[in-house]
């Protein structure tokens, strides 16, 4: 009967040909944004010649994103752009551009970036009948033709809604505007205010079918984190992941979350640990280049000394090293290491060693990750030290921290950077498990444990694992002398 018929149509699957069509959907050509990381996660940039919507609450970075899209377009790809501003005064925009190291006036003189500020004063305008926004089209169209623009930003288009009475006229005109921009062949970025139930307050996402990006600025427990999410990208396989991003003097940096692919190049080259006896224990030649090393131990057991020894050895080879100190300041680290005969300041002076000291609790985990990746990119080190990662938990949950470290380690592996990670374990208790559970991510795991002997407390070191090499199974006594770390053989007798 009727109901069975309904059921039949309900369960009907689309014909196979249609399904194939959908899966074979050709990807849209891309317009590179030049924004660090964004092109990586979008598979090359924004849909070329089409409008993209960037939505977010006030202060989340929409304008900075849009501005950088134009600045990079002009400087890196030689594509002139037009910034149509419904809100921001040109002076603020000029400041944004200047902070990225460019002069907006110079851009305007050379017709590389044109700013058109559209002021709409509701109080000055009366509506007396039918109208359209042809004036806006003509205005933008004239500028596009004048400078040969390839990129257009409309920031924030929604301001138009407060300027006009008739929302229905406006909606019809916006629909026409998006179609017209597409016909013009420009890659457009339209910004919109975040709405309560809709992505944008005025539901602009309804008109943008190709690409919608949402920006977010969250503050949890007084820790601020910026995140980006691609909610729509037609014809492209995009992750639903949230990507942390940074805004600083260089503009925007989006941190790509690398899928944990294990296809990185492996090196059989060895690098010295900086401690002769430890090199011996590691098959006589030290760590593998590009591998990851984890050192676990209680407070004061000598983790930092091992890290500094490695940093010293790296710099002695003339290679750059990046040291993230989460507990000590740079000055403290230098002073403390000097007491065991490790002189780090010459390496800093020569630009080989860079120490980045920061309290993890000051910013969110994502922001940390973003900062770290940015520093890694800037300094281009061959070795990176995180001392200690356990402090990062203060900036997030253990699960978050593990995910973040996985991403970071992955990134370093791909770059062939040797990662040296210290993990502070609780109390004097013996832990063959790392607090953050990252031991499985690392190639080499060294343990420092407390030992007591004849009323004396000292430390012992042993290699718990080291993938791909014959390593010593001995437990050595770990001592700090004026000449650095010393490993004494007798420890195994304990």
């Amino acid at each position, binding site marked *: 009967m009727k109901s069975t018929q309904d059921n039949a149509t309900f369960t009907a699957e689309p014909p196979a040909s249609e399904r194939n069509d959908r899966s074979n959907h050709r990807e849209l050509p891309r317009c590179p944004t030049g924004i660090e990381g964004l092109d990586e996660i979008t598979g090359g940039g924004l849909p070329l010649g089409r409008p993209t919507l960037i939505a977010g609450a006030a202060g989340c970075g929409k304008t900075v994103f849009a501005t950088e899209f134009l600045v990079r377009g002009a400087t890196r790809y030689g594509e002139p752009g037009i910034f149509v501003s419904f809100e921001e005064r040109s002076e603020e925009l000029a400041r944004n551009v200047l902070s990225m190291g460019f002069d907006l006036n110079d851009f305007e003189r050379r017709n590389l970036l044109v700013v058109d500020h559209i002021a*709409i004063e509701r109080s000055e*305008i*009366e509506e007396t009948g039918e*109208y359209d926004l042809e*004036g806006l089209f*003509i205005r933008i169209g*004239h500028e596009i033709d004048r400078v040969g623009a390839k990129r257009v930003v409309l920031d924030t288009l929604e301001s138009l809604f407060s*300027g006009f009475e008739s929302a229905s006229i406006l909606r019809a005109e916006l629909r026409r505007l998006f179609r017209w921009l597409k016909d013009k062949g420009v890659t457009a970025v339209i910004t919109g205010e975040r709405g309560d139930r809709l992505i944008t307050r005025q539901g602009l996402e309804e008109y943008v079918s190709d690409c919608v990006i949402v920006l977010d600025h969250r503050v949890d427990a007084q820790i601020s984190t910026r995140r980006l999410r691609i909610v729509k990208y037609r014809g492209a396989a995009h992750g639903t992941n949230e990507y942390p991003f940074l805004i600083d003097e260089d503009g925007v940096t989006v941190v790509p979350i690398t899928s944990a692919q294990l296809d990185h190049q492996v090196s059989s080259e060895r690098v010295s640990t900086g401690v002769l006896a430890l090199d011996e224990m590691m098959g006589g030649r030290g760590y593998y280049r590009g591998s990851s090393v984890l050192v676990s131990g209680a407070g004061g057991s000598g983790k930092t000394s091992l890290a500094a020894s490695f940093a010293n050895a790296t710099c002695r080879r003339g290679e750059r090293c990046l040291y993230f100190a989460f507990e000590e300041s740079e000055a403290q680290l230098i002073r403390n290491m000097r007491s065991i005969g490790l002189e780090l300041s010459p390496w800093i002076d020569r630009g080989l060693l860079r120490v980045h000291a920061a309290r993890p609790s000051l910013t969110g985990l994502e922001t940390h990750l973003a900062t770290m990746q940015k520093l890694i990119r800037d300094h281009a080190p061959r070795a990176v030290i995180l001392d200690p990662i356990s402090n990062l938990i203060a900036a997030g949950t253990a699960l978050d921290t593990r995910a973040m470290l996985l991403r970071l380690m992955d990134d370093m592996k791909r770059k062939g950077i040797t990662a040296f990670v210290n993990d502070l374990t609780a109390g004097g208790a013996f832990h063959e498990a790392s607090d953050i559970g990252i031991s499985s991510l690392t190639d080499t795991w060294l343990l420092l444990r407390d030992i007591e002997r004849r009323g004396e407390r000292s430390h012992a070191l042993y290699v718990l694992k080291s993938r791909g090499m014959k390593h010593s199974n001995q437990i050595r006594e770990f001592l700090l002398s004026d000449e650095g770390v010393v490993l004494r053989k007798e420890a195994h007798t304990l």
Partner: protein
Amino acid sequence: MSTQHGEFWELRLYIAGGTTRSTSALSNLKQLCEKHLAGRHRIEVIDLGTKPELARQDQIVAIPTLVRKLPEPIRKIIGDLSNTERALVALEVRTEPTTT
């Protein structure tokens, strides 16, 4: 009270090509002026289709837009002026208290 009688109305109508909305705005404006501002107005029509650069210069977004340049202050009225009453109010033209 009667300051208005000495005033001159300088009006500028922005249109875009010969669309029906543009032509009806112009004819509505002419009608209105002849009736209420006879002999003390001037209408200038600007077609943005031929002078697109003026859209930016004069901050025009909607079409048609009528700008009252005089008397001051400058006022902008958008739409085809089919709503005569609103247009008169917006232009601040005081109508004679006659019944016709």
